[in-house]
């Protein structure tokens, strides 16, 4: 068993590394605290002869150990924030100039609607091709910047590509533009991660990551209306 699903996007590995960094800090915090707690419970267990200490932690001398614990946590917190910043910047704050493929993905109860740019290569023009059926599979090229316009027509949905560590809400009235670049071919599930009604758990589509040539072929068939 692997903790994470296979990492297939450019930032997936960075996110996994971030997980292990946080786990290191959280694990240290957990074992140190629990260690002290268990040690204290055993070392200071009841005995009629024992004279308990009486410090109240009101002077800095007594308080320094707790202060140290807080300082360590603060360090861990800010180190995590510092460490993740590049990944965050890459994922959220910049959409690549070079949009190799620009698709609109629209949530509805209960499947995803995909809009591909028509032969003119531009989205939101008259020749757009719309794929709107449950369980349909869309294709995208590998090693290319795929930009999604995420939207919804009814309630809130959430696009979740777990292998790509990609998840954004689809909110009626808004367009959220995010990108992903796959670096491993395969067929992955598109899951809806936000409760969207009765058949939420059946809202499923697929994304097929494949080489540029195979993708072009699929796209041509799509334009010709000959593929399934």
């Amino acid at each position, binding site marked *: 068993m692997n903790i994470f699903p296979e990492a297939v996007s450019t930032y997936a590995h960075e996110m996994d590394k971030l997980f292990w960094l946080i786990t290191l800090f959280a694990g240290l915090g957990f074992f140190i605290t629990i260690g002290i707690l268990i040690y204290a419970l055993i070392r200071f267990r009841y005995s009629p002869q024992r004279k308990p200490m009486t410090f109240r932690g009101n002077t800095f001398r007594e308080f320094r150990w707790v202060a140290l614990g807080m300082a360590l946590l603060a360090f861990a917190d800010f180190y995590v924030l510092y460490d993740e910043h590049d990944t965050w910047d890459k994922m*959220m704050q910049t959409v690549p100039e070079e949009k190799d493929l620009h698709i609109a993905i629209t949530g509805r109860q209960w499947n995803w609607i995909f809009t591909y740019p028509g032969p003119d290569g531009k989205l939101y023009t008259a020749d757009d091709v719309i794929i709107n059926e449950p369980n349909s599979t869309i294709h995208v090229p590998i090693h290319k910047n795929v930009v999604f316009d995420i939207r919804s027509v009814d309630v*809130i949905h959430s696009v*979740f590509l777990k292998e790509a560590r990609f998840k954004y809400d689809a909110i009626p009235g808004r367009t959220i533009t995010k990108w992903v670049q796959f670096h491993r071919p395969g067929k992955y599930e598109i899951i809806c991660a936000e409760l969207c009604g009765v058949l939420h758990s059946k809202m499923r589509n697929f994304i097929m990551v494949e080489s540029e040539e195979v993708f072009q072929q699929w796209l041509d068939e799509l334009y010709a209306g000959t593929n399934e």
Partner: protein
Amino acid sequence: MATHTQSFWTKYIFSQDHKVIGAQYLIVGLIMAAVAGFFAYVFRYHLAYPDAEIPLWGTLDPRTYNMLVTTHGALMIFWVAMPILVAAIGNYLIPTMLGTDDMAFPFLNMLSFWVFFLSAVVVVASLFVPGGGFDGGWTLYPPLSVDAYLNTNPDFWKALFSGGSLVILALALEFASMLMGGINFMVTTINKRARGMSFSRMPILVWFMNFSVVTFMFSVGPVIAGALMLLLDRVAGTGFYDAYRGGDPILFQHLFWFFGHPEVYVLLFPTLGVIGEIIPTFSRKPLFGYKFIIWASIVAIVLSMVVWAHHQFVAGINPYMAVFFSVGTILISIPFAGIILSYVATIFGGNIRLELPMWWAVGFLATFLIGGLTGLYLGSNTFDIYAHDTSFVVAHFHYTLFPITFFGFFAAFYYWFPKFTGRMYNDFLGKLHFWGTFIFFQLFALPIFFLGLNGQPRRMSDYTAFETLMQDWHIQFREIATISAILLILTQFIWLYNFIVSLWKGKRVSSDNPWQANTLEWQAPSPPPHGNFEVYPEVYRDPYTFGVVQVNGKQKDFIPQNEKLPS
């Protein structure tokens, strides 16, 4: 002391005695916990065995599944944790710890319970109206929770008597009740302390109770306004959250989480108070950092008002704002770490009597620690993009809210049981109950972390549609979680048995102060009569004077707050 005669009705039903009102809150809370626990059993069973017939229930369709999950969440937060932790514990302990006879406004206190009772009736009724109970998630996110979006003219009465509207109404009543109760708590604390009980001599639990209601009061306004708008969207056809009419669904999320995140602290504070009373008593050692804990809590309350949007990192909020909220979220961990470490420091160097309440206190610290530390993963905005809306979040908040609600309640229950009933519980059954709860809880929640990390989304009625979520180990982990959850629920019957038998047949306590604690409630008779004290106490010192001292030539290791020492 009130000596007037009381009929059955004024003594037990429409009572204005804070202890009876506390018991009423407790009973309603426990009944709701039983309902919500049963729902948890049903949907957990369904998750582990999607096709099987569920014993005591039957088959489960996705709509009912969503309804059960929604109701479980709403009930556990608003009709179990709130009444038990804030209302019941506060009602029992604030007047007794302050050394007074009752709340500042006994009539208002009774009124707030009955408003709460009405809210409980309404929320239960919402499950039986035509069209079924509400199934849009306990967070009530519109547009899903509006149903009738784009409908400018809904049938008012039909929309009003539908599951969702009734849940919103019940929430409004519940908030009104808790606001009344909160005002009562604060006025009582400011106005009705015993002579000599300055603020700096108040038991930490009274401080925490007031922090709890202050946090509630300052955060609940937005969600009341937001819920009213949501109700109007449903019954009157307005478009406050309808994107097609200029409204904004995200608006509700902001209003909800502005309240929703502080709400966790509203629930956490009473439990921290309970633990903060139990640990010094059983460690025979003064509470570590009394003043620090108070200041840390105030800092945490202020911070809690600016962290709400960490629930919306994936909801398309401005990425720069997200960094701000991430910093806030991560900062708020520091005061709470300080408080938890102060409790550990209180234990350190004591003379520890591992009685049952102390087990629960230590169990709380250990379990809550995991809940707090896993918050780091979710507070990190980057990792939250992946972990948001997966079972990781479910495991995380069960690791915080379960210890807060149940470890906190049971710690308080066993600690104050001898005081408020005059009888002792069965210690062996109590230990059995503790270990059962402790172990089965970990076995229930730990697997869910791993399922979540592997990308299992929450709130799904089954995962059969997704091949990658149906690997063998996924199925096994779900089974482990489900079986442990069932055993966890069954373990509570030990407690129920212990509770009922001890209530009637338990050994009478020989002393009014069996744990040799210092706070004032232990100076009252057990159980305290109407009016609590025979002689109203006067306070001479802080509540944590432990450690061996010479009093009148005799060695003592504690001095109650109201004991006057010869000078």
